């Protein structure tokens, strides 16, 4: 085994796998910083992967497909925002609803749209083409976009008045309200922003990374992204690092467990737990105890 090969493979793999996780985590950070919990990202990823492919094939352009996926994410975010922010509903239940809805919509949607059940291959003409094609896999432009979005979000959240207002809605909505900030508006917009990013990540799954749509394409990435958000202490740049680390060790574990020499010594099941363990240890180790925004997940109603 060539060590250089291994490093290049794992770096490219990590950047590739990180995109949906980081986009979702960063979106979730903004949403929760404003005080809205959304556990529906798993469903948003799945549905926008599906609709992203639909939009791309209708329009013939992968970029319109990506925007279409983000648009579906936005709609679902608006649904969640409407229920939690304006109707003061519970934050968990609509998320469960979205996850269940996605399972149904996609399972029925694949045969309804493409005539085949269970899976559909996205034609290569409407897939995002990589910047460079290497024998270790392509390097997608979405990697760059993800990094830019992360830094931009971080900057807005911590360096601008807009960010301060968003955070105040999650930390102390009463104080924010008394200063004339429309808590409902900021919370709603933050929720929609979070879901839109997840939608972008979902469309990336089908239109870029995997080139296929299946009934369970998201495979728990929405939940991993939520965990990553918590371990990163509700901080976009740390979420980026966390997502990268997870991707890196996820790849490394597959590489290592495929190696015949290693297989004889360590069972693959153990190696497969490494990405989770290492990510938790590193990310949580850096930041120590994670403290959520004070009003996270609590509906705010003016007295």
């Amino acid at each position: 085994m060539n060590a250089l090969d291994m490093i290049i493979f794992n770096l490219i793999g990590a950047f590739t796998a990180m995109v949906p996780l980081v986009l979702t985590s960063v979106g979730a950070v903004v949403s929760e910083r404003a005080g809205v919990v959304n556990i529906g990202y798993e469903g948003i990823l799945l549905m926008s992967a599906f609709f992203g492919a639909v939009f791309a094939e209708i329009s013939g352009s992968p970029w319109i497909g990506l925007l279409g996926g983000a648009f579906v994410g936005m709609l679902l975010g608006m649904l969640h925002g409407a229920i939690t922010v304006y109707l003061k509903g519970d934050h968990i239940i609509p998320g469960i609803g979205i996850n269940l809805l996605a399972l149904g919509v996609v399972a029925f949607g694949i045969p309804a749209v493409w005539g085949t059940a269970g899976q559909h291959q996205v034609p290569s003409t409407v897939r995002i083409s990589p910047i460079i094609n290497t024998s270790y896999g392509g390097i997608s432009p979405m990697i760059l976009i993800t990094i830019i979005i992360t830094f931009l979000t971080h900057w807005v959240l911590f360096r601008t008045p807009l960010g301060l207002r968003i955070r105040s809605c999650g930390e102390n909505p009463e104080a924010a309200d008394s200063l004339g900030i429309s808590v409902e508006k900021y919370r709603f917009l933050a929720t929609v922003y979070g879901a839109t990013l997840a939608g972008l990540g979902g469309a990336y799954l089908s239109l870029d990374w995997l080139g296929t749509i299946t009934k369970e394409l998201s495979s728990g990435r929405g939940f991993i992204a939520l965990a990553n958000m918590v371990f990163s202490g509700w901080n976009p740049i740390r979420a980026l690092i966390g997502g990268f680390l997870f991707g890196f060790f996820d790849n490394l574990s597959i590489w290592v467990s495929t190696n015949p020499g290693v297989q004889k010594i360590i069972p693959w099941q153990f190696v497969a737990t490494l990405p989770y363990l290492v990510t938790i240890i590193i990310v949580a180790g850096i930041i120590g105890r994670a403290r959520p925004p004070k009003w996270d997940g609590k509906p705010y109603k003016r007295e």
Partner: protein
Amino acid sequence: MKKSMFALFLIGVLAFSVVASGCIGGEKETETKTEYAGKIAIVYDVGGRGDLSFNDMAYLGASKAAKDFNLELKEVQSKQESDYLPNLRSLAKSGEYTIIIAVGFMMTDAIKQVADEFPDQKFAIIDGYVPDKPNVMSILFKENEGSALIGALAGLIAANDGKDTVGVVLGIEIPVLYKFEGGYRFGVAWAEDYYKQKEGKDVDIQILYTYTGSFTDPAKGKTAAQAQLGQGAWVIYQVAGAVGLGVFDAISEYLQSQGKEFGPPFAVGVDSAQDWIKPGVIIASMMKRVDVGVYKAVEAAVKGTFKGGIVELGLADGGVGVSTIEDIKEMLESLPEDVRAKKLEEIGVASEEELLKKIEETRKQVPDWVWDAVKELEEKIKSGEVKVPKAFNKDEIEAIRKAKDWKEMMKLAEEWESE
């Protein structure tokens, strides 16, 4: 005011989704008015028609049997897992059907229950294990034999190109998959020996294997295939359901990066003739001939040779095998016209002929003597001269992994058989 608007909106969404799901998932029943000698029924699992795999192949077999024996075929779609029991029960209750066939192991429990309720009704289940009911025929497949052919194909392609590594990407580590892995190993070992006798050169082909722990996440398959390619794998066999789609994509991307339209490296498909999914990338598929299984069950019921218990179909019965161009053609032709046209468009070919031509060309990348060698092994397994071990637990697969050559593996097969 605002609230009531939202409530109305939500009710609207709800009503729409109920209507929509009713439209999409309606129970499909085919009936035509002609004089039939009898009736048979087939119950699909949640995958349903159009999966280009299990259910479509079951339909192929059932419709062929219906035509050959002049029977009326009733198809029943299952929308969700909770439909299995009522579907089977209502068919059995009518008492009109010579045999009721359930497609897929997920229906095992439902079949057991209904078989007890209606002891006079004949049932067959594909891929389900029901050994002890007199009115249920369980049709299983010897995947180890089919996988041995794939192993031989992979091993010889690698040896022919001067490579020393092949791979297999598997799903969750469950005993059924040991059958595939063991058979594959046997085939590769056989190929080593064959190549040595043909070319007089020693080859030592190592097998990379990855249990991905999933049947649903294509990303896992893609990463595993990339890792195997990076470590030199020349042919990768996928035994992992939807995870395998990632394997195809990884190899396709690898070929693109080298500016090649055709492999090697190649992927190998599983269950149905998957060659059409990515022509140029997939050299062949290990087919589980569900159609043959269904046909045999109907035949047995019609001719009165039906017996409850396990029927295991291997190479000799045509139950497993390496996909041929004919298989792909048959599969394509079983699709409704509009679906077929759409599939061809997605693959990026103008017509069925063009697709088949491309698949043929893919196969021509491998010299004829390799295909002949695979045929030779097939004949030997059919005649019983060569026996492929069937690993069913951890100890057995470990024994195969440790075995030095195929003769040693065959000894294991004979040992296990006599037990």
